Every structure is written in C-alpha cells, then in structure tokens.
C-alpha cells in the first residue's frame, strides 16, 4: 500500500483534479448566465462538441491555438443564437429545444469530422505554462500553477462571471429578467435582448469548454467526445444554486472523481471503479433533493416570456 499513497501520487491526483475541472467550469459558468436570465439551455453538450470540432479543425489545418479558440467562440455564439431564436423568439419548450440543439450539434460535429478529417488525429495543443516563482512552491506550486493557459482562463472566469452577474448593469438586467420578466419589461429592459445576450455568452463559453478538451486536455477530436459532460454542466448550475462559487465547487467535485478514476486505472487497482464513478451522480441527485425547496432559483427559469397584448 505504500506505493499507492505517496505524497507525489496525491499531488498528481490534485493536479489532475484542477486540470480536469476546466471543461466543467467553462460550460457550467456559461449555463449560469442563461439560467440566471430564465433560459434553460439543455443543448450545452451539442455546443461543446461543435466548439471542440472547430477548434480542433482550425489547429489541425495549421492555425494558431488561439485562432482555434476564437473559431470555437464564433461557432458557440452562432449555436447560442440558434437556441435563442428557437426558445426566446419562437417561445418553444426550453427543455425540448435543448435536446434538438444537442442532437444537431452531435450529428453535425460528427458529420464534419468524418468528412473533413476522417480518422482520429492528434494535434499539439496548449502547453503547460508554469507560472514563475509560484510554481516553485513545493507541492502546491505543481497542483495550482503548472497548467496550460485554458485551465487558468477557466478559473479566471469564476470571479469574472461573478462580477458580471452581481456587479454590473448587465448583470442586474440578467437577474431582473430571470426573476420577473414582466417587471423588467415595464422598466424598459428588453427581456428578449437580455436573453439573447446570455445565450450567446453561454454558447461561447460552452464552445470554449469543448475546445479545452480538443486542443487543451486531450488534443484529439472524436465523435461524441464529451460523453454527456454538457448535461452534467447543466446540472452543476442547479447543484451550485445558480452561484458561481457553487458551480466551482461542483466542477471540482466531478473533476476530483475523474482524477481518482484515472489514478485507479493507471495503477490497475482491483476496485470496481465503475461503482465509485456513480457516486458524484448519486450525490448530485441527493444534493438536489435536499435543496430543491430551499434554494432561490430564478423565478422565471424555463418560462417563455410573451408581452401582454
């Protein structure tokens, strides 16, 4: 057992945990914007796949990594616009239109991948970027300050999102529209305008989440490579009670389990790891069950808004 629990394996696990939280963070912070304005976007997984493919394709064709991220953002905004048109302008049932968006993204990213690339290829993605001095701290330095740029960016998005939602005019409008669209409308806030904005922000972040997989963490694109991660991201927003700190906690929980699973597989420990991997899902259900009544969710969540005639 000595081998299993050395300090260096512990550091390794925590390092992976910090790193693997990246896609969860981008996607669920993006989803937080939409939900705070009252729109449930269940299509995050589809947007992630589109972002993952386009970022990968750009890099595969020899472009700069940041160009890849930019391309993903543009594609994500377009997917967000599609979702906004269907669920804001056409006022469709939000859960179901999300499924439509998911299937569209899943199918289209696979179609494009098979047509334009064909086989599984690798690219050299974002490199580890040790932060001078800080990364030299024993243990902690490697865990926190020895990652690629997208990982740092994901954590930076936590305070940025908090600031935008809680301390800016846009954030105030977002919260107002999510809480009471009728009142916001009366005060001259464009309900649809705000919701279009949040869905575009959410789409961009979801696409970057996908890009963080295809050109940051795995450096490969495969069909359906997200494996339902986008759906988890939606649940994490509920799990985190629509607060950015809560979302951060949920993301770390899921990434910790992923990191532990990698470790268990690597050391070939005879633990039925599949059973252990169920735990975060079961825990999420339990947490939702205990908090469903207490937490203050955006009152107008998943409700279409139509101006009175």
């Amino acid at each position, binding site marked *: 057992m000595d081998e299993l629990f050395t300090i260096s394996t512990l550091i390794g696990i925590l390092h992976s945990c910090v790193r693997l939280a990246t896609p969860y963070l981008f996607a669920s912070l993006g989803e937080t914007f939409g939900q705070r304005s009252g729109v*449930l976007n*269940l299509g995050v997984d*589809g947007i992630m796949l589109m972002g993952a493919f386009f970022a990968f394709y750009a890099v595969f064709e020899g472009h700069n990594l940041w160009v890849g991220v930019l391309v993903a953002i543009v594609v994500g905004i377009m997917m967000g616009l*599609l979702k906004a*048109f*269907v669920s804001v302008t*056409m*006022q*469709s*049932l*939000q*859960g*179901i*239109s999300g*499924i*439509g*968006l*998911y*299937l*569209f*993204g*899943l*199918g*289209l990213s*696979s*179609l*494009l991948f*098979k*047509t*334009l690339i064909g086989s599984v290829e690798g690219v050299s993605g974002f490199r580890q970027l040790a932060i001078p001095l800080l990364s030299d701290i024993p243990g902690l330095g490697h865990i926190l300050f020895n990652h690629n740029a997208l990982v740092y960016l994901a954590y930076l998005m936590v305070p940025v999102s908090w600031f935008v939602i809680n301390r800016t005019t846009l954030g105030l409008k977002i919260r107002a529209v999510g809480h009471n669209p009728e009142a916001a409308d009366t005060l001259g806030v464009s309900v649809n305008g705000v919701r279009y904005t949040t869905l575009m922000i959410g789409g961009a972040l979801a696409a970057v989440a996908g890009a963080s997989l295809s050109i940051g963490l795995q450096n490969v694109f495969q*069909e359906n490579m997200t494996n*339902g991660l986008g*759906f*988890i991201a*939606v*649940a994490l927003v*509920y799990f985190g009670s629509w607060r950015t700190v809560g979302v951060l906690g949920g993301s770390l929980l899921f990434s910790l389990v992923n990191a532990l699973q990698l470790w268990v597989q690597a050391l070939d420990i005879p633990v*039925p790891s*599949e*059973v252990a*991997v*169920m735990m975060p*899902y*079961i825990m*999420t*259900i339990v947490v*939702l*069950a205990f908090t*469903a*009544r207490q937490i203050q969710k955006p009152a107008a*969540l*998943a*409700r279409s808004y139509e101006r009175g005639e």
Partner: protein
Amino acid sequence: MNTRLFLAKLIDILLPVLAMVVALVVGVLLLFLLGTDPFEAYSALIRGALGNVSGITQTLTKATPLLLVGLGICIAFRGGVINIGGEGQIVVGALAATAFGVGFGNMPALILLPLTLISGAAAGLIWGGIPGLLKARLGVNEILTTVMMNQIALRLMNFLLRGPLLDPEHVAAGTSIPQSAALPESIWLPRLVPRTLFHGGAILAVLLALAVYFLLWRTTIGYRIRAVGLNPHASRYAGIPVAKYVTLSLALSGMLCGLAGAVEVLGVHHRMLEGLSGGYGFSGIVAALFGKLHPLGAIPASALFGALLVGADKMQRAVQVPSALAIALQGLVVLFVVSSDLYVRRRTRRRVGDDGSAGPPATEGGTRDAVAEA
C-alpha cells in the same frame, strides 16, 4: 366538424411534415457545402431504407424501440413532465431482462418470456419512478435527475458487463468482449420475416400504442394524467392528487423505455451488449414530437425515423456520406417542430378544445410550481 376546425387539425398534422421537409432542405445545403452530391446521398438513403425487403424489415426493426420509447415520451409529456432518461431506462430494462432470462433459463418458455419482459419493464419503471417521486415529493427538476440516472445506468452497465453479467464462455476463452451470455433460444421473440431481424416485438409495440391511447383518452387515470399536464393548479382544486400523477407519468414512461430495452435483447441481440440503447432514448423523443405526442401518431413517426436511421447507415456504406447526417437532421426536426408550436399555441389560446390534438401541455414551470406548492 366545421371547416375551420378541420383546417386547423390538418395544419397540425402537416406542420411536422413541413419541419421534416425544411430539415431535409437544410441537409441538402450542408451536403452541398461539404462537397458531396446531396441527391445521390438522399437517393441512397431512401433506397437503403425502403428499396427492398431487407431495408424495409430493418426499418421496422429499428422503429420498434423508437415506438416503445416514443409512447413513454407521450405519457410523460401529456402528464407535464419531460423524460430525458430514455437511454438509461432502456439500459436498465435490457440489463434486468438479461439477468432474469439468463438466471432463470431453466423455466419453461411460456412463463420465462413474459417474466423476462416484465422484469425489463419493472426496471424501467423504477428508473423512471425515482425521478418522478423526487419531483412529486421534493420538487426536484426531473430533467436533471433523468440525465443523472442515464449516467448511473451506463456505469451500472459497464460494471455488470465486465463482472457479474459477463459471458462465462468469454471468460473461459480469455476474450474480454463486454457482453452477457445469450438468453435461452426458446424465449427469443419470433421472426416475422424469415432470415431478417424483424421480430414480434413490433406487434407488441403497436398493440401497446393502442393501449396507451386507450389509457390516456378512455380511462380516469389517463384523464387525470392529462389534466395534471394541462393545468396542475386547476387539477389540484379539482381534487386530483397531482403528486401521485406526476410520479405515475414518469414511472409509466420509464416502464415503456425499459420494455424497449427488454425487447431489443429478446428480439434483436439475444444478449446484453454495450451500445444497445443506440440513442433510441433521444430518437424516441424526436419520434414522439413528430407524432404530435399522440400514441397513434407515434406509429408512423417511429417508422419514419426508423427509415431515416437505417437509410443513413446504408447511405454511409453506399456513397460514403457519414450516417451522422441522420442525427443532425433529427436535431433540426426537433428545433423546427418546437418552433412551429408557437403557431399552434397562439391558435389554441383563442379556441381551447380537448379533442386529443389540442395544444401542447404545460410542461416546464407549470407543474413544477404546482408540485412544489402541493
């Protein structure tokens, strides 16, 4: 029936068809941009799905699980809840059916077959019932719980197919394909057309479509499910125990999905293997929406989407256009169908009638609030 109502109904039926046409047109543009010949691709798709006996039977074989899942989705929607957990319910249904069929393989077929189907249905019922109960009692969003239950079911499958349910022959032979032992041949569902995969599950599915129609529109339980779906607040004042019917809708929905898994095992694969759910949990939602959330509408709709899936596979082999096109088209159909609902809702607001094809139920928001207050 006066002319105006007739026209309205006609448009209701035509809207999904129109959505399909628009999706196909977008598909043409996509294929064109990708440098393939769209018409060659589409004709390969249609020929593959409907061009010969083999294609038609494959289409109907694929349509069977789609119809069963679609029926489950109809019940959930009519009850005002959304069931995204079809995939997981199919998986646990298939697992339970396999475990029972293999475990009690010595029983006479006449008893074993129904019990195997029932265990699949029961597993689905539980898998759908848990989110139902959590929603009804604690107000937990069923979309999230069904998504989580999908993930749990997949992990459970990975575990069981690599451990307790792993085929002993494979273990002995040293190969490690994660699949179960075969079920006794005596309980395989009969082939309806010899030397094809088309099996008796299709008949079962159509009979169940009639049964679900009867349940929803000819019984008190069905009336209450629909009442809760249309207006949970009013239902509560009318004395309907809303929480009970919310649970019931999701449990019944899960039951039909679980049955779909059992039927796939007994009719097609004769054992449990990875990838058995094959996206039916999502495609079933598409078929149900396309059939206007009506059990009888789900019959032609699932045949259509069965044809799309089979045709897309054939197209990939014949002209090398990826079959993923079918998934993208399904997504577009959903987006167009839900968007066109705006038109239906605006009209039904003016004229509310319950003739089995009225506007969509008050899913989302509505029930959740009412349930939370209950």
